[in-house]
């Protein structure tokens, strides 16, 4: 149980670091851009740690967890779209 919580938590941090790091490194200027590159390096480091040290990629439990995560996000997006349609149509 704790393995799943830790590995999925690290995946979440890695995704946000990579995503935000890319955006900040591309659109930022001077100091902000440097911070963006730092976030990118942290994200890549976490990805390396997850693949090389924790090796969750070979575990079915990890991919089941990823399925649950992606399913939850898609479900949330569908729910918000339903809300928007209901509000716009009214």
């Amino acid at each position: 149980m704790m393995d799943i919580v830790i590995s999925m938590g690290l995946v979440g941090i890695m995704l946000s670091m990579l995503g935000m790091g890319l955006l900040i490194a591309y659109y930022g200027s001077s100091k902000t851009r440097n911070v963006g590159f730092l976030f990118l390096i942290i994200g890549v480091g976490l990805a390396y740690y997850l693949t090389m040290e924790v090796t969750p990629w070979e575990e079915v439990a990890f991919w089941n967890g990823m399925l649950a995560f992606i399913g939850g996000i898609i479900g949330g997006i569908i729910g918000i779209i339903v809300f928007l349609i209901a509000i716009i149509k009214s």
Partner: protein
Amino acid sequence: MDMTSNFELMEFFVSMLIVGIGVALLATGLFTSYFGAGKSQKIGFALLFLGAIILTLTYFMAFGGIDAIPTLFDAKEVDGDLKFMNALISGVAALGGMIIGMFAILFVLMKVDTVDDLEDLDLEDLEDLDLDEELKKLEEELNQADDSGEAENNSENSEDEK
């Protein structure tokens, strides 16, 4: 290792998809029914009701309890834990990780002194500007433009009279 052998699409993906829809409808319904007025408020109550029904059905589909509702999200035990609970914990852990990452990024960005970006702007020119003088210049330009326009009109009228 065959990684596709034990994927539980029904227990992990579909169950969380429905939970996600339910939570989103519940949250947006709460928000709209509280802050909305008139028609919007009624829509908010409908969304709230729909979200509550979806989450209740998901609970019964996962844990059973009512014979009429089949336990689609099979609550078989895996290492002593329910599969549905594993999926829920995985999703919540990943979302929690993302939120922690976002907070860390915001914290670092707020702590880093990004004021030096403003050095690119030539603020000294702005400080040297005398707004009153600029306004007077603009007014003079506008007056000159009006005067020239009137002079042109007068000349056209006199030509017409001839």
